């Protein structure tokens, strides 16, 4: 019987991203940004945009597959796919869905992308303007709990409480992201280094654990990756980044209404992560560098724990800035600056950075670059993560 796996069947052959802007500063429309990122990814792969035959996205992306296919003049659309759920929970799922389509022969060249111009549409950090709210929202929003930060803050409060983890662990995550962004010409926060003192004195968004610098930016931009069969990737311009595994979904009843998920202080990866490593045939200690979606630093903390990369009991000791920096840290984290300091491209910038790491061309290159893990959208439902690897990891 053929092994049912995505391991090694497909690879990312091309990456493309636009200039990243602070929200409201893109001179180009959201759809034009999507086109720019996709065309750049095709150039990077050495593939004509006419040869794309599928699109996968997430977060209710407004750049629809049909319009993209028409605008780019692709010959035949064979796969169009949207991952359920808001935010960036689907970032790795979109890549995984593209890979699944390619691995099963539904399509040959699928773009996984995200286009997001928050300055042109609604911003995430602002609550609803509606006079009435129904369903789950009706039990939450009238109490002033409406932004993503507020919806997740109590998970972080409880997790920190349960494990005795201090604010400094979250601060280290933020400092590492800002540190890495200083070398990255496309990072929105380049030229704005963050110090411990500036973090500590930054205003509270939410007590007890959400300083300003624990929260992601709001940006305009687009990013895209091209997924092709593994054999075809060998003939493209760059060293292939093979998809070793994808895990997506969420734990038992993670989306239970009104914060009634059985495992509450969680990023929702507890059941997903073991399956991810099993498909990749790797252990957490095999991972060379970590690209973990920061909606909020507390989500990163819980994701690292649930992926076995840090033990909750050791978080205070392990999560210090030096350990998280490339090249010398024991676990280089968000080496391009991530959502906090490069761009909140809903995590697709993290996938692109992982590919640069595997190619060995990252600005903050990790010494160990045969494998990268990318963790998407902690605390939302559903979530997703992937492991990429070089040929050496196959």
């Amino acid at each position, binding site marked *: 019987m053929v092994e049912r796996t995505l391991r090694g069947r497909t690879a990312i052959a091309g990456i493309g991203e636009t200039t990243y802007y602070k929200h409201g500063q893109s001179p180009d429309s959201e759809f034009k940004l999507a086109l720019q990122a996709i065309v750049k990814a095709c150039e990077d792969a050495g593939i004509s945009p006419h040869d794309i035959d599928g699109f996968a996205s997430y977060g209710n992306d407004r750049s629809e597959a049909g319009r993209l296919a028409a605008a780019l003049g692709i010959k035949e659309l064979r796969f169009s796919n949207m991952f359920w759920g808001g935010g960036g929970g689907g970032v790795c799922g979109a890549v995984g869905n593209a890979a699944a389509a390619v691995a099963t022969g539904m399509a040959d060249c699928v773009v996984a992308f995200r286009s997001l111009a928050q300055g042109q549409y609604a911003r995430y950090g602002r609550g609803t303007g509606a006079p009435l709210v129904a369903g789950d929202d009706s*039990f939450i929003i009238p*109490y002033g709990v409406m932004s993503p*930060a507020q919806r997740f803050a109590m998970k972080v*409060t409880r997790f920190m409480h349960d494990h005795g983890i201090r604010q400094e662990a979250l601060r280290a995550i933020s400092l590492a992201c800002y540190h890495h962004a200083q070398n990255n010409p496309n990072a929105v926060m380049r030229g704005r280094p963050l110090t411990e003192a500036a973090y500590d004195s930054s205003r*509270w968004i939410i*007590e007890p654990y959400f300083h300003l610098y624990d929260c992601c930016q709001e940006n305009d931009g687009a990013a895209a990756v091209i997924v092709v069969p593994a054999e075809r990737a060998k003939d493209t311009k760059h060293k292939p980044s093979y998809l070793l595994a994808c895990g997506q979904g969420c734990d038992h*009843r993670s989306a239970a*209404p*009104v914060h009634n998920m059985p495992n509450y*202080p969680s990023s929702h990866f507890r059941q997903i992560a073991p399956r991810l490593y099993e498909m990749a045939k790797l252990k957490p200690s095999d991972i060379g560098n970590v690209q973990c979606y920061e909606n909020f630093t507390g989500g990163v903390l819980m994701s690292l724990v649930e992926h076995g990369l840090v033990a909750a009991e050791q978080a205070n000791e392990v999560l210090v800035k030096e350990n998280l920096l490339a090249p010398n840290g024991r676990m280089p984290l968000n080496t391009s600056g991530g959502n906090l300091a490069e761009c909140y491209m809903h995590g697709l910038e993290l996938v692109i950075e992982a590919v640069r790491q595997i190619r060995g061309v990252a600005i903050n290159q990790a010494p160990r670059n045969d494998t990268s893990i990318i963790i998407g959208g902690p605390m939302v439902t559903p979530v997703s993560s992937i492991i990429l690897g070089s040929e050496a990891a196959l």
Partner: protein
Amino acid sequence: MSEFYLPEGLPAPSSAPDGLAEPYWEGTREGKLRIQKCRGCHAWQWGPEWICHRCHSFDLAWEEVADNGRIYSYQRPHHPVHKALTGRGPYIAVLVELPDAGNVRMIGNLIGDAQQKVTIGAKVTAVFEHHDNATPPYTLVHWKVAD
């Protein structure tokens, strides 16, 4: 000072369009807490759903429960995320477990000083905040630390 914990102008709860939560909101108007309980397997369930997650019965009752709980988690937001909150300053939201209803959890505000120390595990009792002049009228359920 307003008679309400948070300023007026925030979105109001509605059981429309499907009516699923109507027994809950009707109960709050009478100062009662009603939680879903399965008639088949007796599992407590919150928030409301059409089906019991444990035994898949569609026969769900609304049980009146005692209005005491325990703080499971909390937050003190500072950043105003809605125009009605601009200038309000920090406030406290709590996630409260109901020990008498299978430890289901509810969200409300913690009445009192917004700077008060909040203790996970502290016992709390429900405070019904009636918005009688709203159209339609509704009642929110807040919490205060038990004496």
